[in-house]
């Protein structure tokens, strides 16, 4: 059985490692083979970018060599896929190589598209890339007071990020002793302050307590970088001194180019995680069009299900389990306390009061992530 994993991010790596553990015997006797194709030889811990933006982590702490994270039985190549030929059970890579498969897993992730909003690239800071996070930190260091706006595009990776960055801004300026000189205004595209209702209910009194102003139904139309004004499709605008954006995301371009899914999101069965119309193609993480958060934790739980099912197909010829939509998100409620949200297709999250122990759990997870992607946790 030839299993091909396209994408070496969080979901693809966890899946490949989990599968290599489950199929150790079959790989040894050459009954199964796992190949991974990735666009990069480095693996980034993406949630760490928020800490970089506040000077709490250095960029080099976010990276590990991909080859050190994967099981030695996985055949790993840095050679991104350019063409998916699903009707012929094969893919074609940038180097021109053709890889055939019996089972394909697509975990190519997502990308930010700030360029789709006029002026957003020039007029705002974002922490969704290493360069952007470092730049944002430098801007925050220079900031001596004024108006900070936070704007959010949809869909975006890590649904909690808008409230986390807002809480962190508050704590950052409190720590610098200039909070009274900083006006923070949070803008959100729907008619409450967060897409997850219970997160909105939890965050609202926190915003009130911290003196953070908020405006809902604010979908960014354009940014006038010269005059520092952000305008919404709803007709309102905000004059800022520093604008922080969570840009909208799209799936990877190769997915769109190969007509696998609109916007780069592949239509996916919500329980089996197979691509619609292709039972031997699985989709993981951000790449799916599922109504779950685009987070590492969703990719992780999906990878566990897909690995179990592929292994059982190899061993007994049939899948054995289904994905229930589980997502677990840490929520940093500032610089020294945190809480979490756990939910699935059936149950909404029930948020607890933030505390320091949860913050340390999150701090610990930042390091334990590497054990997690190795398929250990």
């Amino acid at each position, binding site marked *: 059985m030839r299993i091909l994993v396209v994408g070496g991010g969080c979901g693809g790596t966890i899946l490949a490692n989990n599968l290599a553990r489950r199929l150790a015997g079959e790989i*040894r006797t050459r009954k199964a083979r796992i190949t991974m194709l990735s666009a990069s030889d480095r693996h980034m811990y993406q949630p760490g970018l928020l800490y970089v933006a506040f000077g709490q982590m250095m960029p080099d702490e976010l990276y590990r060599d991909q080859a050190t994270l994967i099981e030695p039985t996985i055949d790993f190549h840095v050679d991104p896929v350019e063409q998916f030929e699903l009707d012929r059970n094969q893919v074609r890579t940038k180097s021109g190589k053709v890889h055939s498969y019996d089972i394909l897993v697509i975990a190519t992730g997502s990308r930010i598209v700030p360029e789709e909003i006029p002026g957003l690239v020039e007029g705002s800071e974002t922490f969704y890339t290493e360069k952007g996070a470092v730049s944002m930190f430098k801007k925050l260091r220079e900031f001596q007071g004024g108006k900070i706006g936070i704007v959010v595009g949809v869909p975006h990776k890590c649904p909690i990020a808008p409230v986390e960055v807002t809480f962190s801004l508050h704590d950052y300026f409190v720590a610098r002793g200039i909070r009274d000189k900083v006006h923070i205004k949070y803008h959100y595209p729907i008619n409450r302050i967060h897409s997850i209702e219970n997160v909105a209910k939890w965050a609202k009194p926190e915003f009130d307590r911290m003196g953070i102003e908020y405006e809902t139904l604010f979908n960014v139309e354009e940014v006038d970088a010269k005059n520092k004004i952000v305008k919404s499709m709803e007709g309102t605008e905000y004059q800022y001194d520093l604008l922080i954006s969570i840009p909208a995301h799209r799936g990877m371009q190769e997915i769109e180019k190969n007509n696998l899914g609109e916007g780069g999101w592949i239509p996916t069965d919500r329980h089996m995680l197979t691509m619609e119309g292709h039972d031997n193609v699985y989709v993981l993480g951000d790449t799916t069009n599922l109504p779950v958060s685009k987070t590492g934790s969703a990719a992780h739980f999906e990878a566990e299900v897909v690995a179990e099912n592929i292994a059982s197909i190899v061993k007994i010829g049939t899948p054995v389990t289904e994905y229930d939509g589980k997502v677990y998100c840490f929520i940093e409620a500032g610089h020294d306390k945190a809480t979490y949200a756990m939910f699935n297709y059936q149950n909404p999250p029930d948020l607890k009061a933030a505390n*320091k122990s949860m913050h340390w759990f999150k*701090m*610990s997870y*930042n390091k*334990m992530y590497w*054990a997690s992607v190795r398929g*250990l946790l």
Partner: protein
Amino acid sequence: MNTRTDTPLPATDYENDLQRLGELASLVAAAQDALSDDMVSRLASAFSEGITLLDRLTRNEGLMRLLQVLDRAECQYVLTSLADAITQMSRELATAPPAKGGFGGLLKLAREPGTQEGLRALSMLGKYWNDSLRELHRHGG
């Protein structure tokens, strides 16, 4: 008969439990005050790397087989005698004059019963090693 004692009445179980909970809370609070984010990160990093290493070791079939074999008494004798032999060798090498070289010296060495015993042990090791390696390759480990 009534007796008086100065010993106070024992606290109820409930009070004892509360006291223990209070002590636990103090311990957690003390840990929170003593530790910093960096310390927690370093501890977590050590834990993460530690379990990764442990995982690699425990899933390494060669190492596990070695440990299994080393559990046998005769293997422990081998290790002990090897350690003894290394000690003896280092002592003898330190005091022995340098070899003069030449075929004669080699012949003299070959005539010694110890040399012949050593060569026999090494050739047996090579034979069984080779057999085992061939078997492992034949059955895929």
